[in-house]
């Protein structure tokens, strides 16, 4: 089921950046969890928009405005299908996951979080899924609770159940951890949260590119995605929200587009999804986001997941041949993220020596400082794989890594 070598070579041709040389060596790009590369189709969609249909959307009557509006709304439809939402108006365009979470914290939080209410997150959250809740709790006098994890990097489910109470108003957890790769049992988490009447937000930053997403089957109340981690442009993302909930929530930002009627005395708000889309959006990149979704759909999530799993398994086995190397994040279910530490070697030194050899990995705390603190480490080195990566590239990483270890020990 995974791709053949020939298919991978064809895929790689769609990503011109993969031909770049770094310090005279072929680029090996293993920083896909930070952001993925963009296929030609996505760049072409941006160009085509600016060259042949640039216009402001939703308001114009002229041809270009209609063309741009249709393309913009086509992305909404593609995303509705991509995550199997029930309605198109449940898809709100944002700048990315961070803005999606802030939207919920500000709007849902404003209306539904009160003094003494509790919000539950997990130990492995990205700062984007911590700080907005801390700000909200501070403002409202609400309480933030944290689900502990095992040393392997898995949520301790019994502890989660103990945290749930009638005071729980929201549970916000990451679907797949960017630092560890752990895939969390979100459906079960959601089921138990709903049983006490809490809503659930899922941070889909890392899962949307690897796993099939079905928000109705999962039954989440909110789901946030960033296009740039999904082979799409930067500065665009979506927040999915259940329709009834979004309707009950107050607007997030005020401005054009989100209004029905404005007088100096009173403004009435537009219907969904426009209520949450104030101002001229990032039209070009929203349109190009569809090209990324089409690209992924063409390859198929099943094949992508199977191939990436193969890469992860291979890389993990190879990495473990290095003396003193420890994989950080050994959950049973993982996306293609291999985080590791090597005894006696600082991750920054490793990254510098790998970079000299053309290899891009990420080092540091991965915006999960509380998680690093829990694990008792300052940071990790992280290689994260995409469908355009190859086993040969993992072999190149191993050569470079062995050289680095030799130099640094």
């Amino acid at each position: 089921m995974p791709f053949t070598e020939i298919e991978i070579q064809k895929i790689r041709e769609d990503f011109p950046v993969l031909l770049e040389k770094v310090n005279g060596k072929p680029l090996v790009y293993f920083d896909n969890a930070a952001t993925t590369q963009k296929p030609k189709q996505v760049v072409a969609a941006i160009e085509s928009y600016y060259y042949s249909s640039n216009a402001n959307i939703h308001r114009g009557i002229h041809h270009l405005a209609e063309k741009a509006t249709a393309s913009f709304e086509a992305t909404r439809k593609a995303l509705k299908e991509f995550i199997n939402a029930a309605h198109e108006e449940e898809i709100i365009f944002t700048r990315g996951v961070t803005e999606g979470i802030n939207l919920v914290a500000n709007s849902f939080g404003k209306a539904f979080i009160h003094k003494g209410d509790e919000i539950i997150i997990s130990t492995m959250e990205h700062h984007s899924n911590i700080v907005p809740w801390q700000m909200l709790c501070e403002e409202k006098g609400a309480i933030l609770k944290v689900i502990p994890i095992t040393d392997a990097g898995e949520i301790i489910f019994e502890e989660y159940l103990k945290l749930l109470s009638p005071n729980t108003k929201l549970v916000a957890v990451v679907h797949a951890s960017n630092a560890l790769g752990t895939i969390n049992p979100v459906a079960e988490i959601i089921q138990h949260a709903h049983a006490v009447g809490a809503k659930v937000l899922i941070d889909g930053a890392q899962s949307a590119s690897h796993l099939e997403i079905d928000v109705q089957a999962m039954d989440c109340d909110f789901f946030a995605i960033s296009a740039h981690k999904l082979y799409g442009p930067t500065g665009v993302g979506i927040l999915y929200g259940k329709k009834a909930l979004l309707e009950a929530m107050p607007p997030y930002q005020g401005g054009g587009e989100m209004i029905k009627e404005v007088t100096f005395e009173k403004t009435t708000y537009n219907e969904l999804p426009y209520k949450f889309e104030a101002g001229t959006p990032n039209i070009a990149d929203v349109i190009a986001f569809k090209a990324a979704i089409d690209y992924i759909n063409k390859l198929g999530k099943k094949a992508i997941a199977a191939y990436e799993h193969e890469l992860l398994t291979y890389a993990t086995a190879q990495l473990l041949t290095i003396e003193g190397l420890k994989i950080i994040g050994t959950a049973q279910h993982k996306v293609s993220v291999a985080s590791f530490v090597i005894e006696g070697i600082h991750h920054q030194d490793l990254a510098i020596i790998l970079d000299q050899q053309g290899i891009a990995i990420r080092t540091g705390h991965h915006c999960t400082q509380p998680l690093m603190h829990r694990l008792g480490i300052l940071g990790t080195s992280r290689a994260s794989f995409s469908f355009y990566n190859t086993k040969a590239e993992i072999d190149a990483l191993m050569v470079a890594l062995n050289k680095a270890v030799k130099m640094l020990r």
Partner: protein
Amino acid sequence: MSIEEIQEQIIDEMDLFEDWTDKYEYIIELGKSLKTIAEDKKIDSNKIKGCQSNVWLDANFTDGKVAFTADSDALIVKGLVSLVLKVFSNQTPQDIINANLDFIEKTGLSQHLAQTRSNGLLSMVKQIKFYAMAYSVQGTKS
């Protein structure tokens, strides 16, 4: 030797290396052999926080000259720190204040180190100059 001469010497040394491996191995060696800061000086007030690694810097003013000791938790940075100390340590406050630090650029080291990491070093250099300024005021008073 003057700050200028020391920098010249480092630049000449670095020019001898033909490939990056040798150059980095040399810096790593410097890092390993750096006489580090005393444990009781490795405190938060002496810490220069970087994005990925930290530097600790301490200064001592004796006989009109400033002696620096430093440390880092990362080896390559430590090697670079060692070069910076070689340039600035045991110089007068005035010479330190007036010095134009250009060996990092001239050795191509800044090119090998991404922005954020170089900036970590630059904050260390800034801190060194602050110490020198403080001591130069002290010097004129006494």
